[in-house]
């Protein structure tokens, strides 16, 4: 039976757990704290480098987790040919961009760690798309390939700052500044055109892949293109195909991400609600030989998507006087709790919103006039 008292976001969490468990992902439960050192060594991987720290009783500097992925990698074994499939539902602590102060954010996500083959990468992509569909049918998973972008940018022989600026133009779909910057850096026109073509690309795999094949053939990004094509071929004819879009403005840190990356969007929410991809480079940085792919869904973003469900704090308020017996109150609550939520009090709380006011007098319930 559906629990009517659960918020829509909470129902989503249960649906996602069932979805991930159905594909053999096991729940990973972790401690709220992690040694601060882990984040210092991988500062750029975090969305913000501010972390809540404290000194533990043994003198170690600890942190409230700003991220889950790093802890999962740290705790994972590095066994070639083996894959560990995990999902989590945890709170992380990050600085809010709008208030500038720390915020507790509920995150649901999964990681596939080990020798992730084409199927594993597709499976994670598919579960990301299905996670979005759990929230809304009007959702899209925008997919890019960091290999394609890094192959092209590496071939331009730019400085680190110039490469970052080019990448930023791609991320902003900013063709005008890209052209001006490439001109100033002496980038040859064929490469500028290639980047402009990538910026302009947006659409379903079926429409975009033939375009991409044409523009990337005989370029340094061909092998990366084939990787992308192979993974997306697995989505052909599937129930998620129509929700996929290829879009190279989806970018993640080149130091950590390598292959397919993606972000999830839901119509009505102004920012991405899901982010993920292949992060083999992070695995190397953490001295692991195998690869990894995963994603996280930011549940705090969903709050704005779901309309405020209850205009009332409770369905019924049952007021009873001091002369009423506990037994009579019990019976009245039992009777009305079959119809909705009942708050039994002796005095009406000031700011409470309810549908119906009930009064218990002489062991009998009287429905007083409606809405507060």
């Amino acid at each position: 039976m559906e629990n009517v008292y659960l918020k829509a976001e909470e129902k989503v969490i249960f649906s996602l757990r069932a979805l991930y468990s159905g594909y053999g992902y096991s729940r990973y439960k972790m401690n709220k704290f992690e040694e601060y050192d882990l984040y210092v060594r991988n500062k750029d991987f975090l969305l913000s480098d501010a972390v809540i720290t404290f000194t533990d009783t043994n003198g170690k500097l600890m942190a409230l987790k700003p991220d889950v992925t790093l802890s999962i990698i740290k705790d994972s074994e590095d066994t070639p040919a083996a894959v560990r499939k995990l999902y989590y539902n945890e709170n992380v602590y990050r600085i809010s961009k709008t208030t500038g102060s720390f915020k507790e954010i509920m995150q649901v996500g999964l990681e596939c760690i080990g020798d992730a083959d084409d199927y594993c990468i597709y499976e994670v992509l598919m579960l990301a798309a299905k996670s979005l569909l759990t929230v809304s049918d009007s959702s899209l998973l925008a997919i890019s390939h960091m290999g394609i972008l890094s192959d092209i940018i590496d071939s331009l022989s730019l400085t680190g700052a110039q490469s970052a600026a080019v990448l930023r133009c791609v991320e902003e779909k900013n063709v005008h500044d890209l052209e001006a910057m490439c001109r100033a850096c002496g980038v040859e026109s064929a490469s500028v055109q290639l980047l402009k073509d990538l910026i302009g690309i947006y659409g379903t795999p079926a429409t975009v892949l033939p375009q991409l094949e044409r523009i990337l053939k005989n370029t340094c990004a061909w092998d990366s293109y084939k990787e992308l094509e192979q993974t997306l071929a697995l989505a052909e004819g599937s129930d998620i195909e129509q929700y996929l879009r290829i879009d190279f403005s989806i970018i993640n840190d080149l130091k950590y991400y390598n292959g397919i990356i993606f972000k999830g969007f839901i119509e009505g929410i102004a920012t991405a609600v899901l982010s993920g991809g292949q992060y083999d480079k992070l695995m190397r940085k953490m001295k692991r030989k195998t690869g990894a792919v995963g994603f996280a869904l930011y549940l705090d973003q969903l709050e704005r998507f779901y309309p405020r469900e209850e205009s009332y704090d409770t369905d019924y308020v049952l007021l009873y006087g001091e002369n009423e017996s506990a037994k009579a109150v019990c019976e009245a609550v039992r009777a009305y709790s079959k119809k909705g939520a009942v708050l039994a009090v002796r005095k009406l709380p000031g700011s409470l919103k309810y549908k119906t006011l009930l009064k218990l007098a002489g062991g009998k319930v009287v429905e007083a006039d409606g809405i507060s």
Partner: protein
Amino acid sequence: MAYLNIALPKGRLGEKAYTMLKAAGYGCPAIEESGRKLIFENEALGVRYFWAKPSDVAIYVERGAADIGVTGKDILLEYRPDVYELLDLDIGKCKMCVAAKESFRDDKTRTLTVATKFTNIAKNYFAARGRDIDIVHLNGSIEIAPIIRLSDVIVDIVETGTTLKENNLVVFDEVLDISARLIANKASYKFHHAQMEELCAKLRQKQ
């Protein structure tokens, strides 16, 4: 069809931007009537315009209240909103400059005091030159800062140079060229891709 919400900056730049959009086929008669209304719709075209404070346009777009908007490159560089920058509209052109009193000499052994409304742009500009600075953040009348010895220099937008001249200030360096940009919310772009690209294509044709 859902409305395409367009945020325009109040003032001359917004009026110019609207003229461009109208020429591209996105007119809205209601906006041309005088009055104090801030929101205007053209149901037939499926567009809804609203006027916003110039520095707020990027916020409206980033937060999804507007699907697209028009704002200056100065605002985009100062606040770095997470939006797409789809077109350089080639209007509202001016320069961000470093200006000071004519008698000013940059003594590099001392910290340079910079008065500006554009703190981040100024910080990045001087950091790239390795110059040690102190920032005085002001919200207006920046030009008086060097005159009353509140700062050594200012970093501000220069259109014609008349205000600088009238206050006996001269441009010492150009920081960047500025013009109005068409920006889009990243999520909206994905769901209204065809509509937005059609609008961009029509605007390009009129440029």
